[in-house]
């Protein structure tokens, strides 16, 4: 339907004036507001733009453009502005060394995610089900976020080093010292500690929304605690669990500080390799290419994991 600009503008202005005269100043504001909404209502495309524009704008500005920039850089030879090439990708994908590092990064990320998910779920569950001081406990969970990541890692160095806090306590208890610093265990402990809040919060949110009657109904119908957990609690909170897993898995996969500070000579992760390309090897294109490959791998892994997770828990019931 063709419409002239004036026919749509006039009623908007008219209603604004009318309300302003007989309704006082507030009505005048309302009138202008309703004038604006009327104006937008009659222009669906403009309205869609007004509503969806800002979030998309933010996504494009802070996510798409940097990603695109990385993509462009990753196809350049040696330095930014160099010739176009694929060799950054072929070098990475054909190198046994780098693939070994990726595989190790994957293994440690899976371990960390599993540990954090288990510990975080237990923690969130006990906060929700057995605690009265919920707010206080949640605050304690989040509290470490107020401190710099590096400082927290140094705290762990103090705890884990030989003759450190942990060993001193063990010594008091008459147990042998562990000297965990610079081992795989130290890296796992460090990761578990830093990412735990990221998992606990979504777990907590989904568990609070879980209707306690459903747990009782399950027990009432003959399911013991474990079967109730598997067939009601877990499926009902699966969204929170997946969110927590994603939030933990992704940053672990990209970590470089924790393994560097707490790990021994074997704790190399792909994030350290990427950081190196940018900070000391001066090979941004190669770093960008590794980053792109890793992004694709991580997203693919998560999609697959979520599909599997959805299949296992989402359908539930009769399939088993």
């Amino acid at each position, binding site marked *: 339907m063709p419409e002239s600009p004036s026919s749509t503008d006039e009623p908007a202005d008219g209603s604004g004036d009318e309300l302003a005269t007989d309704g006082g100043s507030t009505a005048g504001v309302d009138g202008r507001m309703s004038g604006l909404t009327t104006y937008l209502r009659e222009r669906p495309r403009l309205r869609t733009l007004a509503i969806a524009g800002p979030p998309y704008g933010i996504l494009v500005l802070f996510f798409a453009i940097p990603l695109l920039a990385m993509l462009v850089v990753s196809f350049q030879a040696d330095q930014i502005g160099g010739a176009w090439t694929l060799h950054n990708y072929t070098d990475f994908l054909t190198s046994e060394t780098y693939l070994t590092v990726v595989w190790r990064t994957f293994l440690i990320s899976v371990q960390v995610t599993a540990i954090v998910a288990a510990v975080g779920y237990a923690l969130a569950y006990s906060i929700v089900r057995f605690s009265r001081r919920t707010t206080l406990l949640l605050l304690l969970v989040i509290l470490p976020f107020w401190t710099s990541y590096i400082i927290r890692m140094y705290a762990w160095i103090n705890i884990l080093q030989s003759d450190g806090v942990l060993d001193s306590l063990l010594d008091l208890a008459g147990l042998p010292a562990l000297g965990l610093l610079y081992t795989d265990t130290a890296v796992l402990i460090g990761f578990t500690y830093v990412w735990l809040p990221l998992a606990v919060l979504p777990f907590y949110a989904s568990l609070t929304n879980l209707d306690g009657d459903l747990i*009782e109904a399950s*027990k009432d119908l*003959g399911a013991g605690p474990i079967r109730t957990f598997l067939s009601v609690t877990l499926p009902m909170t699966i969204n929170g669990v997946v969110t927590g897993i994603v939030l933990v898995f992704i940053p672990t996969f990209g970590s470089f500080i924790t393994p560097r500070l707490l790990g021994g000579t074997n704790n190399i992760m792909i994030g350290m390799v990427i950081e190196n390309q940018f900070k000391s090897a001066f090979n941004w294109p190669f770093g960008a290419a590794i980053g792109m490959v890793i992004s694709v791998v991580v997203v693919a892994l998560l999609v697959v994991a979520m599909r599997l997770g959805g299949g296992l828990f989402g359908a539930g019931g*009769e399939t088993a």
Partner: protein
Amino acid sequence: MSLLRVRGLTKEFGDLVAVDDVDFDVEDGEFVSILGPSGSGKSTVLRMVAGFEEPTEGEIALDDVGIVGSPPFERDVNMVFQDLALFPHLTVAENIGYGLKQSGVPADERRERTEDMLEMVRLEGYGDRTPSELSGGEQQRVALARALVNEPALVLFDEPLSSLDRKLRQHMQGELQRIQLETDTTFLYVTHDQEVALAVSDRLVVLDDGRIQQVGTVEELYEAPESRFVADFIGDVNAVEGRVTAVEDDGIAINTGDEAVTVPRTTAEEVAVDDAVDVCIRPFQVRVESADADGSDADAPADTDGTFSTTGVVRSRSYQGSDSQYGIETDRWGRLSAEVRSASFEIDDRVTVAWDAADVHVYRRDGDGSPGGDGGS
């Protein structure tokens, strides 16, 4: 032998005594309701039977076997929850088959029994839907089917009908009774709604403040309430304040204003001279006649030979089917209500109001509404 036997059941939450020394039985095949206002402890009793709460003291026996201490999933009872607690992530069929799956019933048999149960609750063909796709009444049926399919010794209901509108609630009451008969299952039903309780139950357990007020059939509770509380809670009641002036072998004289009326001894056990009492009478037992037709508009004297009577003015009327309910401002005892069949009065008509002393119940007015005589707590 009773199916369910509850003895000395007590539950304390800190300083609060939620359930206080409760005894009652449920016979096989009975439909028993626990009736009480909110906070009376009725849901706590139910949850102790189901196994969600541990009693502080007392025994619960099912089929003569003590079940206190055994977890909910090992008890041969199933519950229909107040908010139904259907599993939103499972289909209707999966919800109903959930209990069977837990007890290891093979898939074929499970499907068959689920189908039968859907038919029983008249939800054939709804098996693949999810609970959120059903109406409130349909969800009630699924919750009921989910409990019944396990063929438990006892089905517990925690006010599941309270969320339904009146019409649907009445319909579901009928369905509950039908299904109870068809499945020959024992029901223990908790509610604060006397209408539901009176409509569906064989027997009632009236609970107030954690203590049992009375256990009996609907008729017993209505016609012989043992306390002012029960009288109030089960149907409407008029109460007239009075004072005991004499206790004889054959009757008790109670002064409710000017003169004493003698009431039969059976209506008020264990009262003493000078006790303050409430004389209670059901509205349907109150007789109302036109004062003019009687040929006298003077105060009718309180009849000492077994009739309470006064005069008053009609202040309100409402029709309830074939009966009319009148609110009458009496000259002697304040406002009373009366249910009258066959006669018709207008607002502001002067009437005489009377009832037989044999119909009253007298309770000592000691503040806690317990039956007169035992001195309360």
